[in-house]
């Protein structure tokens, strides 16, 4: 009788040192223990990997429809301030809603995008201007970040890697546009596509998950839908794109152009 049907070399190897006990019993016990251990480990590994696998599956479900972060593109935004009304905050509301940040009027609250009322004291000329991260080609925040958490993608989108941001706030000191916010307290209601973290710095991502999925940023969509269509999003490197054609025919400026930061956000009518 040989009840043992080893299914692996490991069972056979364990059966050898019997130490005087009956060979037909010990290998069976050893193999059963081995099987249980294997099943236990397999269960633990499954439990450990399941969330990650789910995330990967989730990520693939919203996979970019086009090549992501290609240096052949330079994403940019043109804001026609002649169309932007002071009373309209559609872009701000959309950004807040999509990315999950809230401004309750406290100086510690984040504002990834804001409406700035600009007026010339000598002439009375005024404009309402949405200001957010300008996604500079020569971004000061990227230059000063000690760990490289502030970085620029190949397609020009400036982001913060929340995993290596140490919360030193040097980027906030260096940004000429006050485009960055520091998370000063515990968070709730985060959006899975816009992870945030207490003790780290954040700012406009140009809605990078949407852009990678072939959509326009939430502010641009809201401006077209609920606002006055003052925002044009597109590829600054593509001469045929709407943004390039608009820039070719209308004068547009960069904020603090004297700093030569080559911003990705341009303003018309200022």
């Amino acid at each position, binding site marked *: 009788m040989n009840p043992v049907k080893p299914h692996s070399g490991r069972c056979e190897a364990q059966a050898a040192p019997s130490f005087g006990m009956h060979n037909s019993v010990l290998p069976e016990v050893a193999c059963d223990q081995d099987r249980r251990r294997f099943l236990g480990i397999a269960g633990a590994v499954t439990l450990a990997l399941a969330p990650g696998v789910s995330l990967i599956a989730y990520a693939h479900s919203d996979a970019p429809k086009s090549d992501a972060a290609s240096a052949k593109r330079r994403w940019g935004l043109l804001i026609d301030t002649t169309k932007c009304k002071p009373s309209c905050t559609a872009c701000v509301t959309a950004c807040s809603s999509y990315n999950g940040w809230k401004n309750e009027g406290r100086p510690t609250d984040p504002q990834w995008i804001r409406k*700035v009322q600009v*007026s010339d004291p000598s002439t009375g000329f005024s404009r309402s201007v949405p200001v957010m991260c300008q996604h500079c080609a020569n971004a000061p925040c*990227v230059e000063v970040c000690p760990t*490289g958490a502030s970085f620029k993608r190949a397609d020009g989108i400036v982001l913060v890697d929340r995993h290596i941001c140490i*919360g030193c706030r040097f980027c906030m000191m260096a940004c000429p*546009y006050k485009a960055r916010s520091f998370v*000063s307290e515990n968070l709730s209601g985060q959006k899975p596509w816009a992870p945030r973290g207490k003790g780290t710095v954040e700012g406009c991502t140009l809605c990078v998950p949407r852009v990678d999925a072939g959509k326009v940023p939430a502010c641009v969509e809201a401006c077209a839908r609920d606002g006055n269509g003052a925002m044009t999003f597109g590829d600054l490197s593509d001469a045929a794109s709407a943004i390039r054609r608009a820039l070719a025919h209308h004068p547009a400026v960069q904020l603090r152009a004297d700093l030569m930061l080559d911003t990705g956000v341009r303003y018309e009518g200022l």
Partner: protein
Amino acid sequence: MSVIHYREIEGGSLGFWALVALLAAFVAAGLTAAWFMEHIGHIITGMTNQVVWGMPHVFAVFLIVAASGALNVASIASVFGKVAYKPLARLSGLLAVALLIGGLAILVLDLGRPDRLVVAMTHYNFRSIFAWNIFLYTGFVAVTGFYLWVMMERRLNGYSRMVGTAAFLWRLILTTGTGSIFGFLVARQPYDEAIMAPMFIVMSFAFGLAIFLLVLMAACKGTGRPLGNATLMRLKNLLGVFAAGVLYFLLAFHITKLYEAEFRGAEAFLLLNGGIYTLLFWCGAVFLGGVLPMLLFWLPQTRRSRAAVGWGSASVVVGGLALMYDIIIGGQAWPLSIFPGMQVSSSFYDGVVNFYAPSLPECALGLGGCALAVLLILLALKLLPFLPESLVDEPVESHSAVAGTSRVPGAT
């Protein structure tokens, strides 16, 4: 050749342990504050999205700047061969290391994610002056530690000039880096000047020497060790020159700014109508940090007074802290000029002078770092022979060997 006898301080008195306990309490308060800041968030501080660096940075940068300046006395002895300063070189090195550790502790514990210190040590962006400073600060502790070893180990004394020169150059680069943190901030009008790097070096000379004098006088008084007038007066005169140097750099800095029209608004704010910042500049940085010490050091009525040396040094320290507050907080209080020449307003405080009020946790963290530095100095003085037995004007060779005494040639 005269021989200097160094000896540990006894440190057994009730007063000593009471001081240690007091300092430890401050350190504990600082750590508690840091714990709360990490767990609750920076919401419990006065720092906001407008004023992003606050009171902890005032203390931290002050200590770091003072640390490099505290090494001056050792540098004068080793690098420039001034024998008279040799007995003070060890204390000078000790202060440099302790002050830097105190400052770095504050800086690290104020981070949004202090638990990611290992990230800061493993991920570097070499275009960042901050990243360079991580090397400069840790390297300074290592170089100065080695320098102390060379000074304290008789067989290595011959290398003290070489190592001292390396430490001196390192400290110059370090303070250049610290000043450049602000000098490179082109977006902020109150900064954005290359002169900030050398200005910080001169500030370090003054702050470091002032703290050195205070520690030296307190240590000699507390342990009953004689401190010669000549040594003290020489150092006092040097501190007076450094204080004048800081005033000169402040003058050059602000005149340069005033010459450029784009900076005049910021300058008017800081120098004329900035409220607390204007007060801190004129009464703190200029008067307490420069004018008063010079008067105390050089007026005929007080120029020979040891008390005046102490008060003058304390005045430089207070004035230095005021200047640091003015530079760091005042510089952020002035709004960014995103639309030059235009009037602006927004929900994000664009176009308005930013409000800042330091909170208790911030002050506790800052003072905790200062207490840590003093505690390290105190314990080091008790454990190792940093302080000469006597600092009388003409050191004479002792004929009796004392336990725990190390004998080092007076001039190497």
